[in-house]
Structure formats: C-alpha cells, structure tokens
C-alpha cells in the first residue's frame, strides 16, 4: 500500500510538473484528488486494512494529499501568472494612435483678458459693477466734465440715438452712476462694451470693450493711483513689468496720465510689438476731477479719488499676438480654438 501511495504521489507530482495549461492542472486535481480520484480510491480501500494499521495509513494518505495540493497550488499560481502575462501581452496597444476627445469649447480671448483683470482687482478689494450700453448724454459726457459742444464729443465720434441718448463711448459713465448713489468709499471696476464711430479695419472696430476703475475715499493720492496700477501691471504682465506714467489730458481727471508698461514680449529691449521703444501704452488714468465730484454730489474737499480705463481688445491683441481686430468678431472656430 505504501508503495502504491508513493507511486501515486510521484505520478501526481510528475503530471503537475508537466502541466502547461491551467486546464491540465484541473484534470490532475480531479484524477488524483477528486471524488473518483486515485487518492480518494486508495483511501476508500483502507477498509481492507487491519484496524490498527488504519490511522497510520490514513495519516500517510492525508500527508500525500497535502503535498500534492501544495504542489498543485504553486503550479497553478505560476501558470496563472503566465496566463495573465500572455493576456497582457496580447492586449498591447499602439499608444500613439489618435486620442478620443470629448471636445471642449474655448473662451473668447476678450473674455479671458477681462476675467484676468477682474480677478486681479477683486483680489485688491474692488467690486465689479456694470452699467447700460445705451446711455444718457448726461452720464456719458456732461457729468464727466464734457459739456455740450466740447470738442471731445467730436473726437470720440459718438453714435447718437437722439440728442439726449447715445451709445456710450466709454465705460466712464458708470463712474458717475456709482458716485451718484453716494455709497462711500468706492472701489469698483466696470467692464463693458463701448461704441465709437470707427470704420472696421485691422486696428479699429466700431464696438470694443473697456474696463473702468474708480476709487473714492478720504486721502486718496496720485501716489496711490501709481501704486495700484503698478501692482496691476505686475500681476497682469509679469513680476518684472515696469510702468511709466506720462502726463496727458482727460476732461474728467486732473492730473491725468497715460501709462506705458515695459514690453512684455521683449522685456523692454525693443521689438516689433513695442515698435522698438520697449514700452507699450496700455491705459489712461488720473485723479477724479473735482468738478466731476461736484456734479455727482460728492464733496471734493472731503474726498479724493482716482480713475483709470483700459482697453480690453488692446490687451488681448497684444498678449496673444493677434494682428487683426476683425478676427475677434468673425467667430471662426479655427481662431477661437487657439485660446
């Protein structure tokens, strides 16, 4: 019997060692360990043995079974790993085949620039305010110190609806509207669409966008204006951006300035973007004219303030190197997809 047991074990071990596929191992399990398997049969034949021999024999059979099972499991693990390996190999793909995208749309460059400016000023404590695009002459001109027959009215080439109502030529009327409400102090920016009677070409559009800023409080100084815009320029165009304030004239500010920033393409060395000067004109600003305060019901002896205005398209065109303004209104997806 022992001989037989040994033979079974050797036979089983050999078959396990020779099995090359998982199915074959299962066959081996069934043929040796299954209900009708050789080992089970052998165990059944134990009744032919003397009762005193049975426990020892039983133990031997069980040991053999355990040995076979252990060996079988090891072999299965090896074969399973091998099978997985083969499967993975078979599943290899060409990772350079084209991607399957869920196409996502693109923001307009104007909006990207506007949201960037908004983000910077909101961080500095400014509220975003909007105003009407069709506006009273009173707000667009008169309250901004541009009385009837002022040449600035011609210069701005205003679209008129009638003598009292215009398409706003600037976002500045929102300044007057906010000041009139009399809630002080004021820190606000106003993005919006404005209109001027310019024919459409590569650098002009009869409709474009501005962002207006206004701060009114006690003790606001021209130095505050400089500091604020300098910080804005650094955040908008990079930490190394320098600013240059040049005297200028706007009817609603005094003193007034135009602001250049060091060219963000060449860093100020001079390139085709800044036309070799190293500077790019970016916005107009100034201290709110005392007369504007008076017309909006704020006492200029108690309050001072500054205002600034920046052209959105100007920033978008410069920042993204767009060479033709018309592209902004054609909505060609080949253009829009680049942002």
């Amino acid at each position, binding site marked *: 019997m022992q001989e037989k047991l040994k033979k079974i074990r050797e036979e089983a071990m050999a078959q396990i060692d020779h099995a090359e596929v998982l199915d074959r191992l299962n066959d081996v399990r069934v043929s040796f360990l299954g209900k009708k398997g050789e080992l089970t049969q052998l165990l059944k034949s134990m009744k032919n043995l003397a009762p005193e021999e049975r426990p020892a024999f039983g133990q031997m059979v069980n040991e053999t079974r355990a040995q076979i099972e252990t060996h079988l499991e090891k072999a299965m693990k090896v074969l399973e790993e091998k099978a997985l390996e083969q499967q993975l190999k078979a599943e290899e793909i060409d990772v350079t085949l084209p991607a399957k995208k869920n196409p996502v749309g693109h*923001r307009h460059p104007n909006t990207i620039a506007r949201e960037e400016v908004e983000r910077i000023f909101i961080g500095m404590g400014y509220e*975003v305010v909007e105003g009407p695009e069709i506006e009273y002459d009173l707000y667009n001109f008169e309250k901004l110190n541009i009385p009837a027959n002022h040449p600035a009215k011609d210069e701005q080439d205003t679209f008129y609806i009638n003598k009292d109502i215009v398409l706003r030529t600037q976002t500045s009327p929102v300044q007057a509207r906010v000041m009139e409400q009399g809630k002080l102090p004021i820190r606000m920016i106003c993005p919006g669409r404005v209109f001027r009677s310019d024919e459409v070409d590569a650098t002009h559009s009869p409709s474009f966008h501005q962002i207006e800023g206004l701060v009114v409080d006690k003790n606001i100084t*021209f130095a*505050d204006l400089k*500091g604020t815009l300098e910080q804005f320029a650094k955040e908008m165009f990079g930490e190394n951006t320098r600013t240059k304030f040049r005297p200028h*004239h706007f009817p609603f500010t005094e003193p007034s300035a135009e602001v250049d920033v060091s060219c963000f393409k060449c860093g100020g060395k001079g390139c085709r973007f800044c036309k070799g000067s190293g500077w790019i004109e970016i916005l107009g600003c100034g201290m709110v004219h005392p007369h504007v305060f008076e017309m909006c019901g704020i006492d200029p002896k108690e309050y001072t303030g500054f205002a600034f205005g920046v052209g959105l398209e100007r920033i978008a065109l410069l920042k993204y190197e767009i060479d033709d303004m018309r592209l902004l209104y054609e909505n060609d997806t080949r253009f829009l997809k680049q942002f």
Partner: protein
Amino acid sequence: MNTTLSWLKAYVPELNVTAQEFTDAMTLTGTKVEGFTEADRDLENIVIGQILKIEPHPDADKLVVCQVDIGKGEPTQIVTGAPNVAVGQKIPVVLDGGRVAGGHDGKLTEGGIRIKKGKLRGVESNGMMCSIEELGSTRDLYPEAPENGIYIFPEDAVVGSDAIEALGLHDVTFEFEITSNRVDCFSVLGIAREAAATFGKEFVPPVVKETGNGEDVHDYVKVTVKDPDLCPRYTARVVKNIKIAPSPKWMQRRLAAAGIRPINNIVDITNYVMEEYGQPMHAFDYDTLAGHEIVVRRAAKDEMFTTLDGQQRKMDENVVMICDGEKSVGIGGIMGGENSMITDDVKTMLFEAACFDGTNIRLSSKRIGLRTDASAKFEKGLDPNNAEAAINRACQLVEELGAGEVVGGMIDVYTTRKEPVRISFEPEKINAYLGTDISENDMIRYFQKIDLIYDAKAREVIAPTFRHDLFRTADLAEEVARFYGYDNIPTTLPSGEATAGKLPFELRVREMAEDVAEYCGFSQGYVYSFESPKVFDKLLLPEDSPLRNAVKIQNPLGEDFSIMRTTPVNGMLTSLAFNYNHRNKDVRLYELGNVYLPKALPLTELPDERMQLTLGFYGEGDFFVMKGVVEELMERLGIMDRLTYDPSDKKPFLHPGRQADICLGKEKIGYLGEVHPTVAASYGIGEKAYLAVLDMPTVTKHASFDRKYEGITRFPAVSRDISMVVPRKVLAGQIEDVILQRGGKILESCRLFDLYEGVQIKPGFKSVAYSITFRAKDRTLEEADISAAMKKIWNGLEALGIEIRS
C-alpha cells in the same frame, strides 16, 4: 502739430539735445512727441562743388564729363546726365562712399542709396551731382530748385563746405500730439516755452518792436463788430506800398519743415506768424474793400459766397462773415474771399488778427464742409490777448523783410477783456493730493518756468490768459507733478477702510454659463450690437412682430449697422455661416450679449438691455443635444425645478415642428429649435442648424449656488416599467407630467426607454415605454406602496387616452 528743432532753438538758444533726448523728456513733461524725422538721416558725405569744365562723353550722347572743384585742390571728375549743368555753377556733390535719400524721381529709399566711384560707359566718375529730390526733399519746399535737374546753389555758397548744412537739412522735424487743454502749444512759441522749462534753459521769445509810420490806421479803415459773442476781438493794421517778392530762405525753410509751401513774402508772413504764435491771420487787398470798412456780422440765410480757392459755398445765419461796406469778403476764422484776396499787383493791404468763438467756428466749419488750418486753430478756442502780439509781430516782419510800409497804429475792437485767472496757492493741499513732499519753493519755481506768476502777498498763482486750462488747486497740482516728474512721485496703495472684492451674482451666473457651454463643446463668439434692419426679413419675422421695434442709430456707419439688435439670432446665424463658408466642421458657438428692447419709440428713456445666452451649432447633434446643454446648465445653476417645453409659440425662423419655448413653471426663460431650412439657406448654412436662446436676467432670478447635502438613502429603490400605446398628439412631456404629479413622495425618477412608431402600432398611435423608480428615504418600500402609486399613474395616463399594455 509739427515743428523743427531749429525753429525751437530760435527761442531756446541753449537747447542742445539729440532728437531722442528731446522726445523722451518732452513726453514726460506732457508735450507728447509722437515721432520725429531727421531730414539728413540718409544724407552723407555731400559737399558743395563748382563745375570747372564740361566735356562730351566719348561713348554716350546724353552724358557729359565734368571737372568739379570740391575744395580739395585737385578737381574731381564726375559724369552726369543732368540737362541743366553749366560751367561755374555751384552744386551739391555726393562723394565716393556717401549716401543720398532717393532717386531723382522723388522716390525715397529706406536707408538711402550709397554712391560709389565707378565707370559710366567707360569713363571714370567719382561721385554724383544731386537734385533736390535725391536729397530727400521736394520742389514744393525748395521752389528755387529746377524741375528735372541738379540743384544750383547761389553764387555766395562756399565750395567744399557741407551742402546739407547750406540747405538747412541738418534738422529734425518733431510730430507732437497736443491735448485739447493746451491750445497754447499749437504754436512754436508754446512748445518752445515747454521745452525751455523741461530742459531748464532760458526761453527767449521774439522781441516785438513798435512798427509803423507816422500815419494813423484809423484814417484808413473803420471796423464794426456786430456780434461780439462770436468775435470777441478784432484787430487790424494796414500795410501800403507792398513789394511782393519771395520770402527769405530761412523763413521758407521753417515753413517747409512745418509742411507749409512757401509762396511769397506776404502770404509767408501770415503763415509764419500763425505757426509761431498759433494765431491765424488774414490779409485783404485794401483797395477791394468797399467804403474802406470792415463789418463783422452773421451771414444771411443761404448766402452764397466764393472763397479764395474759387469754390462757391452756402452759408447760414450762424456763420460769421467779414464784410466791407457792401459785401462779404471772408468767412470769419475759416477762409477769405476770392473778391478781396491778395494778388501779385496788391498795393495796400489790411492785416486781420481776430479771435472767434471756438465752438461756433467748429460747428460752422462742419456745416459748410470747409476745415482749414485757420479754423483748426480757432476751434480750439484761442486767447484774444494773443491777437495783438501776433499782428504786431507780422508788421515787424513786413518791415524787416522790406515787404511794405506799415501804417502806424492798430484798430482794436475788444469788447470784453479776458483777464488772467488767480488761483489760491496751497502747497500742503497739492502735496496731499499728489502724495508727495515737495517744497513750496520748488513749486513756485516750476510755476515760474512756464510763465505762471506767483503773487506772494496774496498767496495766489496767476495763470496767464493763454493757459485757459488752469482754475483750481488740482490744475496747479498737475503743473507741479509735470515738472517734479511723474516718475518721482512715490508709489503707495490706498489706505483706509478695507473693502471686500466682489463679483456680483449675475456675473457669476454668466461665468457658469460660459463654463457649461464650453464643457459641452461650444466656443465663445462676440457679435456686434448693431445690425441691419434687413435682418427682420431674413428671419421671416411678420410685419407686426414686436422684434421689429428696434432702437435706431441717428448716425450709423451705414444701414448694415443702423439698428440695435432686438434678437441675437442673426448674430449667431451669421457666425455659423462664416464657419460653414470656411468649411469648418461640427461648429458649436455660444455668445453672451445684450439685446436692446425699447419701452417706447422714439426713445425717451433708456431701453431694456437684456443679456442673452445664445447657443448655436451645426454638424454632429440634434434638437435633443441642444436640449441637453440647456438642462445641464440649469442643473449647474441650481435650478432644480423641471423645465417644461411648449411648442405652441411658432417662431418663424425655426422649424415649425421642431421648436419650443423653455419654461420654468409659467415663466418663459428662452427657446430652442432647429433653424428653419429657408432661413438656414438664406444665411448659406447647408446643414441642419440648431439654436437655443436663454434670457439671462430671468435665468439669474432662479439661479442659486447654495447647495445642501441631502444624504444618500440606505434603502433600496424599486423600478417598474410601463409600456403604453399613446395617441400621437400626446407629448412625452404630458406623460411625464402625469408620472411626476401622481407618483407621490416615493417617486424618485422616470426615464423613457422605448419609443416606436410604425407598422406594428395602429395608425395615429405610438408605442412608449417608461421605467419608473420609487424609493423612500426612511424605509424599504412595500409592494402595496408601489402598486398604489402605479395605480394613480395608470389612471392619470388613461385619462390622456393612453392604453396601458403592461
């Protein structure tokens, strides 16, 4: 405003700066230099030569061989084809290695043309004789230069010396951008004053001497001003025994550099003084003035008048006319008349230097369609006190140039004298305004540099009348800031109460709309607010459509841009069509922009501006894809109430069977649909296109970013499928209404999973199947709960004429 460095130097003799230094410094004190042109930038190695000998060229009929003295002892040989050379002439010669600005045809070459010695048809030539065009100028500016030939210097020119110098071409012309508040800087003297202050040099204006003979001008002419409000000052002087001749070279050069063509001494003097003082002048032929009288009055209605350019023009009663005893002889401040203009035979003339109301000149010149150098200056509003200085300067030049005999005295009709403005000087306020710490003395010094007078006793600053922009402390602060230097003002941030930065709710809603549209594949477009009234026909809108009530622009860029849009549809379709024409596939666009809905026409109050979100696409997708985008957006905006779709309002630009109003309860928030094939075709879109328009103010009213976690229930859901035969006209929305209303609290959701119309279904009916899910938050549902709910739903559906199959 253009002027040359040399002219400025005439009044600021110590001004020794390069063009770039001048540009940078002037710009920083407020006189912006837009650019400059160096007249000699492409001229190099050009001297005055004298032709000693001319011989024919052995091999070319049209060429001659010249021996030219260039001041180097040995003459040099130059071959030329110029027709006007003669022995003894002094001419500009560019020597070997030098440069000229362009060709003799007047065409300039960037960087100039380098001239090298070489052989012309076998004969050696060591340079080139130059025409005025080759030197980069024109016969307009150098009227003495011959047409088609070499420029000839006068006999006193020095052989061997710099020809560019002799022509006055070592000069720079600056182009200034003068702001409207600085009328005084529309003159060479005004800019010179600023330049002197900027560079800390002395300003030396011309000394105007007393002029005139022993006679009295009042014996020659009488002046009456009928409308002093339109003509605050009128000065006049008389010059007799006029000798018309060319003006001297120095005057011609200065005028030429300012872009004014020299004509003769009298015309040149008036132009010269206009540039120098910024005061336009006019000269009348005294002998043509009837009654030797000047009357300044308004024109008669529809008066026809011939100006000195020979054009007949129609006046109106707001135009100021200069008249003699009988007739009009000039349009005040704009242009003189043909009937009184100076000719070559003039013997006696009347000089006029007047001041006209700027606004009236601007409007008049616009109405009659004539804008001149004079009107451009007057319309800015000139200082009447400048007129006297200017007319006396002109008379001084007449005497100096020997152009005539000036009659003594000046006629001056000056009704209301313009007085200087006094401004209280409060240096501490100026410093507080600027955020600086500038000393009082420095401030006073800045004022004095630009001729503002400091009255120490009154502690006042007196602004001269030519500075009509100075009234208050803020104005003085600007003057201080300019000369202290904007660059030197410190940079600080506003102190005081902190404020919270804020993006208002409607803008947050808009940003979310942008995000969702983009996630769904739509790119953002921008569209003009104005469009053509033809758009309404293109969109097939009926004549009585309220959308046709649009705000009209009085002065549009053209009919195509003449009305403010009342619908965003045209903009979207135009953009889609642009893409379709450029063969872009599967285009999805969105736009956020206002429509302008007038409350009444004509407009008496501002129209209702309503922000619209417009989505449009062609290519991949259908009606239900668009509907999905709308619902996705609503979900992200926290609008949890179910949207309903009402197909009953037929918009003519949409497919009649594929459109719906989008409603929230009873409120309409927008619409969507397939573009009507006729409309799509008229825009040139050759595929099916879809639109959705959402009224953002209404959407915003319902939107919310507040969220509350409701828990995830542990109890299982139970689903029931329901299969129906439905009359065709019953909409899925009606079935869902029944399910949602009757399903009770335990109803979680319902989902359409089958829809079939066809042969197996009886005509006029469709087969529809829904899967309905029930769930309770607090317990496991019992069969009884579900059958009760299903029973209610069945009953409701049967009431719609629906047969339940299972």
